[in-house]
């Protein structure tokens, strides 16, 4: 099952030429700077803009091809807009019911009540949209889109109009969407934190072109891409809470490359979580160090090396199947005679649990 998106469009400063095959499951992020065409892609998928010659297919469903164009209201999708999109003349309950009333009974797989529960908006039902905070409005908008039981959920920077504090409040809701409901999501963002937290599949866009697309863990550690080059460059790791060390206030987490210790959390054992390892917090040694303050040391194999400025290099490592990146000086790389295939040990100084 794939989602196929193919179209060309003229934009003010550049031409869009998009040819994408996306997995029809999981969370896909379209990522790139403002104005690179992300929203245009989402609008084309939704049929809000009609580009002649476009091909839009979602699994078995054809939404646009040749002369056929299925109008937006007949596409089984949910769309969460960037800014508040609630109808001002309807209270929250009637906003939520607006879409679901128009879906045939046999196609309603998600009960409105469970969407209300998932987004925790039960308290708001009688209120008018104008009396809600930005975060509350986006939660209602997400619940309203979900309640349609769509085959595809499109989200256009759903957190852009929300205060930074509130963002942390909404992200867990969005995350629970695809964990609990298994609806494929295509999401647009220009924030690496948001993508690092949510995406399974990542599409990098620049000036109307797809620069790269693939699994999010690979994309964050691919040395030929911009994500692995900035000072914030990091690897993303899937891990599961394995145990708590109460005496030292540490949480032990299993990941593909071993067990990693992070600052103590209260997450129950068995909880999956994402970790972010900044390249600048990873150093390399040739032997397993003892007598060091660093807790997390893993054997790894050098996979690729790429210069990053005059003095630094970025090294891509594989710990079993899990890619990491390390930012070290060019001198160190030469002293250690690093080259692809060389066995090393990665010492990880600090790890962030993605909230």
């Amino acid at each position, binding site marked *: 099952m794939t989602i196929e998106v193919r179209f060309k469009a003229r934009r003010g400063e550049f031409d869009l030429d998009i040819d994408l095959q996306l997995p029809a499951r999981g969370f896909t992020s379209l990522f790139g700077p403002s104005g690179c065409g992300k929203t245009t892609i989402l609008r084309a998928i939704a*049929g809000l803009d009609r580009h002649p010659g476009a091909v839009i297919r979602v699994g078995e469903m054809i939404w646009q091809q040749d002369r056929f164009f299925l109008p937006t*209201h*007949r596409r089984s999708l949910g769309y969460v807009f960037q800014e508040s999109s609630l*109808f*001002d*003349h309807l209270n929250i309950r009637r906003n939520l019911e607006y*879409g679901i009333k128009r879906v045939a009974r046999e196609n309603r797989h998600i009960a409105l009540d469970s969407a209300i529960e998932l987004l925790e908006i039960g308290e708001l039902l009688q209120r008018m949209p*104008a009396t809600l905070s930005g975060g509350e409005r986006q939660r209602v908008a997400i619940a309203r889109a979900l309640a349609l039981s769509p085959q595809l959920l499109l989200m256009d920077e759903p957190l852009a109009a929300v205060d930074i504090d509130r963002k942390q409040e909404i992200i867990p809701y969005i995350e629970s969407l695809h964990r609990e409901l298994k609806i494929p999501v295509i999401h647009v963002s220009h924030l690496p934190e948001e993508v690092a937290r949510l995406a399974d599949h990542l599409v990098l866009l620049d000036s109307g072109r797809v620069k790269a697309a693939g699994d999010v863990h690979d994309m964050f550690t691919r040395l030929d891409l911009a994500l692995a080059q900035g000072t914030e460059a990091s690897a993303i790791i899937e891990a599961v809470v394995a145990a708590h060390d109460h005496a030292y206030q540490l949480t032990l987490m299993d990941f593909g490359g071993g067990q990693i210790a992070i600052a103590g959390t209260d997450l129950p054992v068995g909880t999956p979580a994402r970790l972010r390892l900044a390249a600048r917090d990873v150093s390399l040694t040739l032997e397993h160090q003892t007598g060091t303050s660093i807790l997390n040391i893993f054997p790894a194999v050098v996979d690729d090396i790429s210069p990053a400025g005059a003095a630094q290099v970025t090294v891509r490592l594989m710990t079993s199947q899990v890619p990491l990146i390390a930012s070290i000086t060019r001198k160190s790389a030469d002293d250690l005679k690093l080259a692809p295939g060389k066995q090393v040990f990665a010492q990880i100084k600090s790890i962030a649990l993605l909230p």
Partner: protein
Amino acid sequence: MLNEADITALFITLRLAFISTLVLLVLGMPLAWWLARTQWKLKFIPEAIVALPLVLPPTVLGFYLLLALGPNGPVGGLMEAAGGRPLAFTFTGLVIGSIIYSMPFVVQPLQDAFSAIGKRPMEVAATLRASPIDRFFTVAVPLARPGFFTAAVLGFAHTIGEFGVVLMIGGNIPGQTRVASIAIYDHVEGLEYAHAHWLSATLLVLSFLLLIAVYGLNRRFRLVRQ
């Protein structure tokens, strides 16, 4: 005091204003929507035609309508051929004249209200499975409600005040086409100032009360929307 003929004239005026406003809202709604939405390069032409009664002397409009609606005119002739009678000097003729004359007062506020909504609410409704007609009535019309009030008040008030067009195409037939504004003119011509006073004062108070009521309602509706 108001005599019986004056009261009849008042009722004809109100009836004319009511019917014209109703027809104008029904016809003006799709027209205003189209004007608010179309990307057509020549859209200024229909806009100018709608606005024409704003600048045209009512007698000019009335004169052309008289020609069109009379027995030798295209519309009147057609009516006659179909077995009816020409529309000049009838109440229906007055309604047609009023609709054309008051058109800009209804279409322009509606067009402004529809434009103010923007494209977004309609796109949102489309992603919530509402067909174009469905979303027009469930989203665009409710959101444009203040515009409908303004349009109805202006259309109604303007039809009440109409004089020139009515005189040209309606004549002055008591009980059929004699409206209050013409009755006042007749009273003044006949130096019946007391009658003119009564009728004028009635229209003044009526119009004022109408505006008070509708503006009051409109403000309340706005408060609900905010």
